[in-house]
């Protein structure tokens, strides 16, 4: 059983004048499936690149098993970051073939499972001789998923694996992920924008907002802290006093507030003349990261 922790301390990164990550701390414990969610431009891909020593950082440190990941062969052997494929490479078409990607992954990752790769290749109906630039968006996602799963790396990172897939394939992907996880108990970090259907797969959710990690906690524990409270304006305001109100929505005298608070405080709301309803992960995400844009 792997016990090595991947840890980022005080990571700061800017591209020119644009600050992407601000003094960020993150700990990835072994044997969990993490979901990384954040809005467009929040810094997700940059963060994943830095965690895996594929991007440089300006300040701070990333360690694996207490050793810096940068130019650390052992860390690089044990961490797989399967990046999104691009139809263009440098300034031309990406003429590399699927089999070239698989071959280099087989060389790069010491735990590479060729038989598993073959099974996935057949299941995804991918043709090894096809050029990357000839693949559909979904097929490109399948190649990155295949490499990530077959790498059998103790820490496996997938950036937007579901983005190009149709809904049937997305379900199948999460099934494959859970099957693999049940067998290997390795760590996965999966970033996604399609939050709701992934919520039940994530044991832990990391929310990245404007270059900062604002949450890193068990998914259900997080969701359970949030409620919608709705009813007559003054009664809602009364109930919400002392709670953290994240957003409100008003129609005439009717008011709905998205609130965060412990169970005891919410008990009071249950006896008042208001409706209290639960949120799902997507609602929580919008409440935390919407910054008013959604209204």
């Amino acid at each position: 059983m792997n016990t090595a922790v991947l840890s980022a301390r005080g990571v700061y990164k800017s591209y020119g004048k644009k600050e992407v990550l601000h003094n960020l701390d993150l700990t990835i414990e072994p044997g969990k499936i993490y979901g990384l969610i954040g809005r467009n431009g929040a810094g997700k891909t940059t963060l994943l690149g830095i965690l895996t020593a594929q991007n440089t950082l300006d300040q701070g440190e990333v360690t694996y098993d207490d050793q810096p990941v940068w130019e650390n062969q052992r860390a690089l052997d044990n961490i797989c970051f399967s990046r999104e494929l691009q139809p263009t490479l440098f300034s031309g078409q990406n003429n590399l073939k699927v089999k070239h990607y698989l071959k280099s992954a087989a060389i790069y990752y010491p735990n590479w499972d060729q038989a598993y790769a073959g099974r996935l290749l057949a299941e995804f109906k991918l043709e090894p001789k096809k050029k990357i630039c000839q693949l559909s968006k979904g097929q490109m996602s399948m190649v990155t998923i295949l490499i990530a799963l077959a790498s059998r790396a103790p820490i496996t990172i997938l950036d937007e694996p579901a983005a190009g897939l149709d809904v049937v394939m997305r379900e199948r992907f999460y099934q494959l992920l859970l099957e693999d996880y049940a067998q290997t108990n390795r760590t996965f970090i999966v970033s996604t924008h399609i939050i709701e259907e992934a919520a039940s797969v994530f044991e832990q959710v990391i929310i990245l907002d404007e270059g900062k990690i604002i949450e890193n906690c068990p998914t259900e524990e997080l969701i359970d802290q949030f409620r919608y409270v709705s009813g007559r304006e003054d009664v809602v305001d009364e109930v919400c006093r002392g709670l953290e109100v994240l957003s409100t929505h008003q129609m005439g005298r009717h008011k709905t507030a998205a609130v965060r608070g412990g169970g005891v405080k919410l008990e009071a709301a249950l006896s008042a003349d208001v409706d209290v309803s639960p949120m799902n992960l997507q609602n929580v995400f919008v409440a935390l990261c919407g910054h008013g844009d959604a209204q």
Partner: protein
Amino acid sequence: MRGTLNDQSLIYLQIAQMLEDDILRGVYREEEQVPSTNELARGYNINPATAAKGINLLVADGVLYKKRGIGMFVASGAEETVRRKRKAAFYDGFVRPMVKEGASLALSEEELLAMVRQAVKEGEEK
């Protein structure tokens, strides 16, 4: 087990509730084995840790117990335990909201009780 999960309550609670439903329906009888954490995770596409949390909740309530190296089993007397638990939940989840709703409609106690009696009678006639 019910086919699908909804997003109206926490998944581990739904897992626990579905197992309880199946115990009340006789899908799983006392001293019989229930699906493992991994079977539940696969069946519902959920994280095994979440499935385990649901099962542990029922262990804590004395509905399920663990046979080391074999799996999870329905405790003897589980049906009665579940029924008792559900009665308490029924009071909090249905009776109290009903009374609250009645109050917001300005129904008197007698009117409310008359409605309940009528509903019981209609249920018997069917």
